[in-house]
């Protein structure tokens, strides 16, 4: 476990975790505080706007872009527990700002984008820690979600972090690089395909022999978890941050 840091971190909870999975941002708070950071939650934040952008509604997404700049403009470190939302901020916010013809917004977006991190990147690259002192005595398997790998490009960081968790057994997930079929509004617009993909992923998670399916994105976990729960598979879903925040009970 690393020495303490004096960094102030603005937590971007992301809308889905804020509303549906509050334990994830709570875990991020606990984890970062344990590593010596001061965590703030700017209440002006909303979401990354991906549900609008990826459905083709650029204008409707601009409100989220502006809210993001307003909420996080003054912070040095902005951290979110989602590769997808971080990826959207990095790749789509500049494009949306450019489409708005608002030059000031473009500058503000560029500045804030460069300071936005996925929690795994912030741990390994900024705090330079892989062993965060976590304890999780369970068999887990990890699903590298598409956007965390291909947009936020967090690479092998989750594996490096998981490998240092005491008590944890990491099991192989077959075809792990395949999409779970969430895809935002894809899950509603193409429900048959989306569930076919989620069903395959849930089957592979079950076949892995793990108690928990871990990912660094709650949207994907909600999708796969929906199938796991319907099928009463017994495999639970959990966000990576919640594992990293869990410590050995003190006697």
């Amino acid at each position, binding site marked *: 476990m690393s020495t303490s840091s004096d960094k102030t971190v603005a937590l971007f*909870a992301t*809308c889905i975790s*804020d*509303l*549906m999975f*509050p*334990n994830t*941002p*709570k*875990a991020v*708070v606990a984890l970062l505080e344990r590593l010596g950071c001061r965590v703030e*939650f*700017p*209440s*002006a934040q*909303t979401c990354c*706007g991906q549900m*609008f952008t990826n*459905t*083709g*509604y650029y204008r*409707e997404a601009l*409100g*989220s872009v502006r*809210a993001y700049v307003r*909420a996080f403009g003054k912070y040095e470190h902005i951290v979110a527990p989602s590769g997808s939302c971080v990826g959207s901020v990095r790749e*789509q916010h500049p494009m949306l700002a450019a489409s708005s013809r608002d030059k000031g917004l473009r500058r503000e977006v560029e500045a804030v984008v460069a300071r936005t991190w996925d929690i795994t990147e912030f741990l390994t690259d900024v705090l330079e820690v892989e062993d965060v002192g976590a*304890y*999780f005595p*369970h068999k887990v398997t990890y699903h590298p979600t*598409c*956007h965390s790998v*291909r947009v936020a490009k967090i690479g092998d960081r989750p594996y490096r972090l998981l490998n240092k968790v005491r008590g944890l057994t990491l099991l192989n997930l077959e075809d792990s690089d*395949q*999409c779970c079929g*969430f*895809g*935002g509004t*894809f899950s*509603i*617009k*193409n*429900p*048959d*395909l*989306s*569930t*076919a*993909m*989620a*069903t395959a992923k849930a089957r592979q998670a079950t076949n892995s022999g793990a108690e928990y399916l871990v990912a660094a994105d709650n949207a994907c976990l909600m*999708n796969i*978890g*929906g*199938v796991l*729960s319907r099928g009463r598979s017994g495999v*639970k879903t*959990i966000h990576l941050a919640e594992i990293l925040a*869990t410590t050995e*009970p003190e006697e």
Partner: protein
Amino acid sequence: MTTIALPHPTRRLTPAPPAGDLLDTPKFPKSVKRYLGNSQLRANLRHATGTIRAKRVRVVSELPNWEQLRQAGEAIKNRTARHLDSYLEQLEANLVANGAQVHWASNAREANRIVVELVKAKGVSEVVKVKSMVTQEIELNEALEAAGIAAWETDLAELIVQLGHDRPSHILVPAIHRNRSEVREIFLQEMKLYGRAAPKDLTDNPPDLAGAARAHLREKFMRAKVGISGANFAVADNGTLVVVESEGNGRMCLTLPETLISVVGIEKTVPTLEDLEVFLQLLPRSSTGERMNPYTSMWTGVTPGDGPQEVHVVLVDNGRTKVLADPIGRQALRCIRCSACMNICPVYERVGGHAYGSVYPGPIGAILTPQLRGTASAIDQSLPFASSLCGACADVCPVRIPIPELLVHMRHRVVDERKRKHIGLERAIMKVGGWIMSRGSRFGAVEELAGRARGILRKDRLGPMPWPGSAWTNARDLPLPPAQSFRAWWKSGHTDNPFTANRSGEGAQP
């Protein structure tokens, strides 16, 4: 044994394709239904795409400079597109200087008219064809049929498709949706109607099936007076056309007939001969997953004493200049038709190419087709949404087309065009959503309301629901938000964090 119902029309020269227009394909979510439910199709596709993916990875990893090759491919194609006018003029001049005749076609109808007239002028009633995407795009075979000319497809998969009264479902392996016993059935039933019959004792062993195709087509190659091809590349600075293939049917069509007509999309141009060293490495490894495809033919106009002595090149626009007008959308014109994007695509893998209602299926089709055809039809409006945006396609694209970015771009275009016509439910939801998400306080208020759902419904998740909730809940449960959002917890002082209470792992679980 699989039994396939095949229609037997009369008076046609070649097997009739399925009735109906591709443009009448229902919107994608609807069109996938009949394919998703076909377990034979899904098994054929999973097997085929799985095989080809593994081969691609193996041969790509052999080249340490693969990323540089991709970047070079991207840059060369960008250079070409951004100066296409001058490269096309150069191409034409070099072709003409070497004895070829060059024709320009603005659209499919014009291209078909040119080809039909050229074939008619030779006084023949049949042509042999090399597999070509652009001739499918312009539906040349049907135009020739209407003019009393039989167009014989000679690629094995195209032959399977043609004899099967079917449409291609993949740009590289058009019969990827068929398994060996289906192919045997088609050959036994149909070959005898259009030429040399398949042997009566034909097995479903692929070498036997390939042998039957060889014998069936050999007589057609031997007597053909006119060959029709596309081109993978057209080299501006030398007037050289390139066809990349495997079976040798391409070489047959390119060399045995007296007349060769090559129909070439204008975006197939590359600036120089040297540029071929980049694409002839990128293409075979990305498409068939081989270090090199069995045969590559390069020819420059007419070669005296070797091959066709009358050579025509038809340069086709058919929507490409429209694609070029959009600086973001034009990136799709870099496509070299390798099919790596569809082979890797989890959506394509589950439904195959027919669901896309387009000659170009899969991820590239989802961005290219609505640009070429426009977004007037239901299928074209839905194609950009036929993706979970997982991004696997962009990783494998040999010319680095950012397919997910272009999908989003095309979604925006569809929404924008629809917006002008009417205010739909979706747009209303998005507008309200956008309004909520532009202020933290508004989202907070919505969260508070949502937090009451558990109390009211007395459950923590939703099972199957009626439409429209069924879209999510048909096969998936939907968790309901907990009573207190993170925002509310933070506002209330963020004490009692379950993860700082020094409790064991389970204690922190929701």
